[in-house]
Each structure stands twice: as C-alpha cells, then as structure tokens.
C-alpha cells in the first residue's frame, strides 16, 4: 500500500470496492479489457435473440461477403450458414467451456497445492513430482491423447482441458500455503485444537486465494485457445457452433473467401485479449507492490 492511498485510520474509510476500482482504473489497458469482456458477454447474451434456432442451419445463399446483405450482416460460409449467428453462439460455447474448465482446474490445482504446501515432507515430494510430470508432457499433445481416448463430447473436452491446465494453480497455491502455514494465526488455531482440514480450508485458503484468482484469467484465456485449436483441427464437439471449428471450415475456401476464417479469428483474439488485460489489471490492483514501471 503506497502513501498516496487515502485510507486514513479512524476517518471515513472508502469502501474496499471503491479503492479497488480506483486502483484498477489507473491501468487504461485494463479498462479496455473490461469493455471488451463486456462486449463478449453481450454477444453471448444476444445469441438467443438474434438466432433462437440452430446457428448451424442454412440461412441464405452460400458465400455472401460481409456487409452486403442486411439479413446476414457478416455474410455466410460455404454451406450458407450465417456467420454472425455462429459468432454469437460461439461466444456462448467459448465462455462456457473456458469457465467450467477454469473452475475444474483451479479447484483441483488448489486442492493438490494446498495439501502439498500444508503438509510438506514426502506428501509434498510425491505431489510435486506428479505435477512436474504433467508439466513436462506438452499440454496440447496430452490434450490430443485424452480426446482420442475419451471422445469429442463437449463434457470430455472440458475435462481434458482441465486435466492439462491444473499444474500452474497447484504450484501457486503450494507456494502460498508454504508461506502461510508457519504464520502466527495458523499456530494459534492449531493450538486451539482445530483439525487439519479446517485449518486448510477455513483459515489458510481465504488468504491464499487472491493470487490464484488473478491467475484464473490466464487459465480462462488458455482454455479458450486450447478449445479453439481442438475445434480448428476438427476434433471438437460437432454439435455446437465453435469459433475454432468455423476457422477450420473456412480453411477450405481460404483462397477465395478468406473472411470466413478471419471473422471468427478476430473474435478469438479479442476475447483472449480481454481476459489477459483484465487479469493484468486485477493483478496490479490486488498486488500494488508488484507494480512494474
């Protein structure tokens, strides 16, 4: 906390939310990220209004260029599917897959990291060797292997993405737990006879979470990229509109109608950009001491 922070002891302290917002706002790029994120959420929300039915249905003549026909503002692909409908519904799928995979990987990673960091010793050794093994296997290669075994159902894809991305939150949580487990407040509750699981989840976890939550935005961006790469290769769930899949389909008409692949690509770039910018803003607002430059 710097001297400029307007929290005076005893005086009228501003709420935590307003202090947080003031710090977040200092980073203009982070504010832009928030605006972009709002745009992506709006796209997902509007999907049902624009195209209540199946976004994969044939909507008009094939290969209408964008901005030429009001009925299909962003044009159609080679099968006559409305690109805007695909983009809006794709936003839903990307966010859904990203969110669930992030929750799963954070949940599992924090659990492993908490146990390893709290108990230390051989438990830590064993868990960290397993984490290292998962980190060593190239994550996209492991993802391919898992999808080859489990199949391309959307649930399995989410699970596979979580399996290849839990290691970073595990390491973060472990470092936090190792730093916190010897602190006085933990010793105090331990002397009161509180059990291990209670100390881990009720005492240490709330203090260890902030850096992990900031990192969640990175995992969210990675999960969206992994899913789109899978779908691009045609290994995604074919029953849902997905940006990666749209780009993969657009590859067939790349020479003549490159916009079919370009439009969903821009959607992916903006979505991933929004998450990394918001993550950076959160990091600076929550850990002001780490602010660089």
């Amino acid at each position, binding site marked *: 906390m710097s001297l400029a922070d307007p929290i005076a002891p005893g005086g009228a302290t501003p709420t935590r939310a307003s202090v947080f917002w003031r710090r977040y706002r200092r980073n203009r*790029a982070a504010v832009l990220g928030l605006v972009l994120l709002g745009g992506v959420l709006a796209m997902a929300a509007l999907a049902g209004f624009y195209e209540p039915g199946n976004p994969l249905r044939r909507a008009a003549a094939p290969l209408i260029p964008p901005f030429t026909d009001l009925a299909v503002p962003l044009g159609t692909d080679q099968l006559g599917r409305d690109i805007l409908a695909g983009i809006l519904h794709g936003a839903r799928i990307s966010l859904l897959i990203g969110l669930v995979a992030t929750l799963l990987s954070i949940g599992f990673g924090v659990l492993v990291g908490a146990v390893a960091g709290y108990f230390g010793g051989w438990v830590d050794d064993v868990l960290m*060797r*397993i984490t*290292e*093994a998962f*980190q*060593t*296997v*190239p*994550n*996209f*290669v*492991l*993802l*391919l*292997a*898992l*999808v*080859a*075994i489990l199949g391309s159902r959307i649930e399995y894809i989410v699970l596979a993405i979580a399996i290849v991305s839990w290691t970073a939150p595990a390491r973060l949580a472990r470092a936090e737990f190792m730093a916190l487990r010897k602190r006085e407040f933990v010793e105090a509750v331990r002397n009161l006879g509180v059990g291990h699981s209670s100390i881990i989840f009720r005492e240490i976890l709330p203090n260890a979470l902030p850096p992990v939550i900031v990192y969640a935005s990175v995992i969210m*961006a990675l999960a969206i*990229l992994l899913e*789109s*790469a899978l779908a*691009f*290769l*045609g*290994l995604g769930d074919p029953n849902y509109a997905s940006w*990666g899949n749209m*780009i993969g389909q*657009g*590859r067939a008409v*790349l*020479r003549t109608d*490159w916009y079919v*692949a*370009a439009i969903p*690509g821009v959607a*992916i*770039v*903006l979505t*991933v*950009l929004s998450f*990394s*910018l918001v993550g950076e803003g959160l990091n600076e607002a929550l850990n002001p001491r780490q602010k*660089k*430059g």
Partner: protein
Amino acid sequence: MTILLYAIRRLVQAVPVVLLIMVGTFLLLHLAPGDIVDALVGDMGGADAAYIARLRAEYGLDEPVWVQLWIYMGKLLTFDFGWSFVHEQPVSVILFDRLGTTLLLMITSLSFAFSIGVALGAIAARRAYSLTDNIISTLGLIFYATPSFFLGLMFIVLFSVKLGWFPVGGVQTIGSFYTGWDRVIDIARHLVLPTASLSLIFLAFYLRLMRATVLEVAELDFVRTARAKGAAEGRLMIHHIMRNALLPVVTLFGLQFSTLLGGAVVVETIFSLPGLGQLAYQAVTQRDMNVLMGIVFLSSILVVVVNFLVDLLYARIDARIELT
C-alpha cells in the same frame, strides 16, 4: 568438476518424472478402447475366440497389469514403442524419421522469438512510455492473444495467395531435386511462414518479460553506481542491465518449450510439414494409439533434455548460483 556434479544431480532429479510419464502413457494406452490384438484381428478381418485368446497370451496381455507395466517400461527405455498398424512400420522408425523436421521448426522458432523478443523488449524498456514503447507493447499484446493457427492462415492469405512470396506448405518444392545451397534456400523459404506463426506468441512472452525486468534492473543500485562511475549508456545496457535481465527470460525459455512443442501440432498440420506434430494429429484421426503414445513419451523426453540444458546454461550465466 562442480558443473559435472551439478549436471549429474539434475539428471537424477529427472528420473522420477520420466518414470511417472512412463506409467502415465501405459495407463492412457490401457484406458483407450481396444488393444493390439483387437487391431490385429481387425486387420485380418476376424478370427475365432480360441485364436484371439492365444494371440493375447502371445503378446502378454493375459498377464497381471503390473507385469505388463514392467514389460512396457522396459520397452520404452529402449525407445521401442510397438508396431503401427496404420503405417505398417515400427513406431520408433516413423518417429525418428519425423523428429528432424520438428526440431528444425523448434530451433528456428525459438531463436527467432528469443532474439527479436529480447531486443524489442530491451528497446521498449529503454524508451518506456514513448511512442516506440507503445507500439511495441501493443503489438506484443496482440501477438499474445492470437492463436497460431489463425495467424498461420492469415499469413497464407497475405504472403502466399495475395503476394505469392512464400510457398503455402510442405518442407521443400516437390520434384525440384535441388542440391547444396539451393536446397537449403528452398527449405528456408518453406520454413518462413510456419516459423513466424509459431513464434510470434512466444516472441510476445519474451518481449513482455524482458521489458518488465529491464525496467526493474535499471532501478537497482549497481546500475546507478556504474552510471555514477561514468559508464557509457551502451556499455551500461549490454554489460550491466541486459546480463541480469536475461535470467528470468532464460527460465521462461525452458518452461515454454513444452508449450511450443504442443503448438507445433497445429502449425505443422496447417503447413503440411511432415513432423511429429502433424503425425500426432494424423494418429488421433486414424486412432493409431501406439504412435500417439510414442509421441507423448518422445516429446516429454525432449522437454526433459531441453530443461536440463537450460539449467546448465542458467548456472553458467548466473555466477550467483552455487553448483553444489
């Protein structure tokens, strides 16, 4: 002598990780539906139950799982990944045939990303908050968020289809039979677009980290001392700041290598480069599990080796690390 001991210690530490990866690939192979006998019988067009049972016994599939795991690990140690029924060849032969292309793509991409990323990051930090810095940092942010497959496709549209500067795919011109330098130049032209699409995201990583660490190191006391003693800006930058700012970037280099290998899958598929990545994709679509698991294991070994080399390099450039 100390560096040798250090190297041996690092190698010993890698052993449990490699063993765990072996167990992992074995488990994945077991989880996959169908085993080698199913594949054989399918190849023959069916067989009676007694014959199938005899085949299973012959391949050791009736043994307890522990024995099978032991045999499998012994085979992995000699890089024996079994037989590919799709390619009708031993898996190891196919893999080592493809390894060269992937390594070539890795080396060009990493060198490009590292050198340009470090240089741009240092320039951006020296002119922090200027127009140059803003342009470099914005480009870094955009590369950071762009998936390599999308970048690759857009490069093809711009540089191959519209401008015709570079070939669309492949590793050399088919039927050209170039030799000597002509062949090298031909391969280099084929590698420009794949290298660019694979490396830009990593270039962004290095750029951002380099900018942040140069800004941090430039504030430290020893830099102020050097400046007070009259060291010229150029010498200050190269001798005092860069050398220290490079350390975290080298660490990232090792950490990112596994991600880079994963990225090669998509890039090799787009540019039809006959490497391990393209093979991995084909193995998934053709359900060739032996090849896929061979790639999982071989690429992991590659990551272990690269991390080992990066550790040695790190110990070499950071004199503060004690090699005990």
